[in-house]
């Protein structure tokens, strides 16, 4: 049933993902879901809660603790025409699944001359802020963006979390679907029913005239918080790309026509990161729109340390974003 704004309710991101899975699994028997602890237990994040009971062990099941095998099963099943969805418990563990994703899934279509569609979705939480230290706090989206053949999604709002997952699973390409652990307890009002948020469409989260801040996932909320703190003194437009590839450049350029100032904020490492690429695209397509130097406020050049004050120091905080905006808008 379609989105029903008459029946608004509060929802958390993981429940939104679970609902999206339920919807697509109900309408398409080719959609299957597996990963570590995904079966009877329902996933350590509760992603698959109730789904094995509803769709059976043939479609929702546990795997051994073998990320390479999980990704390989996913890619092979996609080659066989299924529409597999897997959970990688933390995106950090993708280090073990890079070959079946990068050398296989992202390339098999091209290597076969276009004979295969690999319709597969990898769901993985990312990001720091939970004091889980250097091996459970990473943000690897730049690796995936630098890998031709993959699409990359990073939702922020609960509404997008549900709508983008539905779109990702229906897409005929390998999609990395990345959600942020710090948004786990977020609760937002959403309609009843189902909806889709198409890949490749940015959202303007708040309109402003002085500066364009591009931020996704958790950092979108931090950017909004920073923007609010100026109450009017500086008018900030916050753009949430929502999908990192394909990337909606037009919405950013349209905003820059107003503001002439660009700040990109993300938590993943700055070097060869998402912000660098947005700066490259903007320079390429709209250099004349830039009234001053575009800036990137990204993660520091450091693995994520454990202790809270150290962890905070390497990831953009609201105050850092506010300071960056202030430095750009005199």
């Amino acid at each position: 049933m379609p989105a029903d704004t008459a029946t608004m309710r509060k929802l958390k991101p993981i429940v939104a993902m679970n609902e999206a899975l339920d919807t697509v699994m109900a309408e398409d028997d080719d959609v299957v879901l597996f990963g570590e602890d995904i079966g009877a237990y329902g996933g350590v994040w509760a992603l698959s809660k109730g789904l094995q009971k509803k769709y059976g062990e043939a479609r929702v099941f546990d795997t051994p603790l073998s990320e390479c095998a999980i990704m390989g099963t996913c890619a092979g099943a996609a080659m066989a025409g299924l529409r597999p969805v897997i959970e990688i418990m933390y995106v950090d563990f993708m280090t073990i699944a890079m070959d079946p994703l990068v050398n296989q899934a992202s390339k098999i279509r091209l290597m076969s001359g276009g004979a295969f569609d690999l319709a597969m979705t990898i769901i993985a939480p990312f990001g720091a802020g939970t004091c889980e230290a250097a091996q459970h706090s990473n943000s690897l989206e730049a690796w995936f963006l630098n890998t031709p053949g993959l699409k990359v999604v990073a939702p922020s709002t609960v509404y997008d979390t549900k709508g983008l997952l539905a779109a990702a699973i229906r897409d005929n390409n390998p999609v990395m679907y990345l959600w942020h652990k710090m948004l786990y307890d977020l609760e937002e009002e959403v309609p009843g029913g189902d909806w889709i948020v198409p890949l490749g469409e940015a959202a303007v989260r708040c309109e402003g005239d002085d500066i364009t801040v591009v931020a996704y996932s958790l950092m979108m909320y931090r950017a909004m918080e920073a923007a609010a703190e100026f109450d009017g003194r500086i008018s900030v437009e916050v753009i949430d790309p929502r999908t990192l590839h394909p990337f909606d450049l037009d919405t950013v350029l349209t905003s820059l026509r107003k503001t002439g100032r660009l700040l990109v904020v993300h938590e993943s490492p700055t070097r060869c990161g998402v912000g660098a690429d947005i700066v490259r695209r903007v320079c390429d397509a709209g250099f004349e729109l830039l009234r001053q130097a575009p800036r990137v406020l990204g993660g520091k050049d450091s693995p994520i340390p454990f202790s809270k004050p150290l962890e905070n120091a390497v990831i953009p905080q609201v105050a850092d974003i506010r300071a960056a905006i202030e430095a750009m808008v005199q």
Partner: protein
Amino acid sequence: MSFTADELKRMYTTMVLIRKFELNTIEIFAERMKRGDFPGALHSSEGQEAIAVGVSSQLRRDDYVFSTYRGHGHAIAKGIPIEKVVAEVHGRATGASRGYGGSMHLFDTSINFMGGNGIVGAGLPLALGTGYAAVKRGTDQVTAVYFGDGGASQGAFHEAVNMAAIKKYPIIFICENNLYAATTHVSANCPIDDIGERAKAYGIPGPVIDGNNLIEVADTVGAAVARARTGDGPTLIECKTWRHRAHCMVIPEHRPGKDRKYWAGRDPIDHMRDYLISENIAAAAAIEQLEADAQQQLDAAVAYMQDSPLPDPAEVLEVVYAG
């Protein structure tokens, strides 16, 4: 396994066709290299034809196969038309992968030939996916996946065989142990005598056989396929064999002469020819005719390749992403 005389002759012809294909391809590549025009990597499967043909003799058209970078034989035996294989290794638009894959990446969805692989051991985790798909759909399709003695040292081998054993997926893991991984002897990749022995670590059968004996390969694979089709799970089959040449064209021969002499007397095609004659299945003249047939098929395929255009670069970016 009881084969009809025609089947045996057809299998012999296919082995010969693979052998002739490898020789012809090396010739063409060598010429181009002399002209300083590097045509890509080439890994000959000469000497391992009995495995490819024996395995394929037990598979249906809709059974899945994952191959390696040494996979010309696997592809031809499973049934990719020879002209499409020739065209692909020479980068033509009419090739099995339209010129996008090359020697290491032959694909044919019409017979579920799921591609070669340039990454050692990487086919094994992919095989889990088609194995699972067959179970999920309730078909009785099996998946065969090839790898080498070196491939058995990859973590992917362990993860894949382990998961297949747990899930009882219908997969035949075929280890072509030709005693060398590039220049490294198998003893430097495996501390025990037989890779098949490792099947015990997963609670599945692990027969160790003469990979140069077509009938023995066919019998062993046939039993494994029967197990798999009826839901009894995977089998790991180690085929002892020998490649006639060094790892690839750019690596000089380095293997001890005595090994080479030993294996020279164990060529799988010679073995099959003797078998056909001794069992009165075909006389020498008939066998020469089979060999001539193979030559004719190859010649036609090479001509087809030569008349085929190169792929159009303007199309590349339309191939990368699916609509």
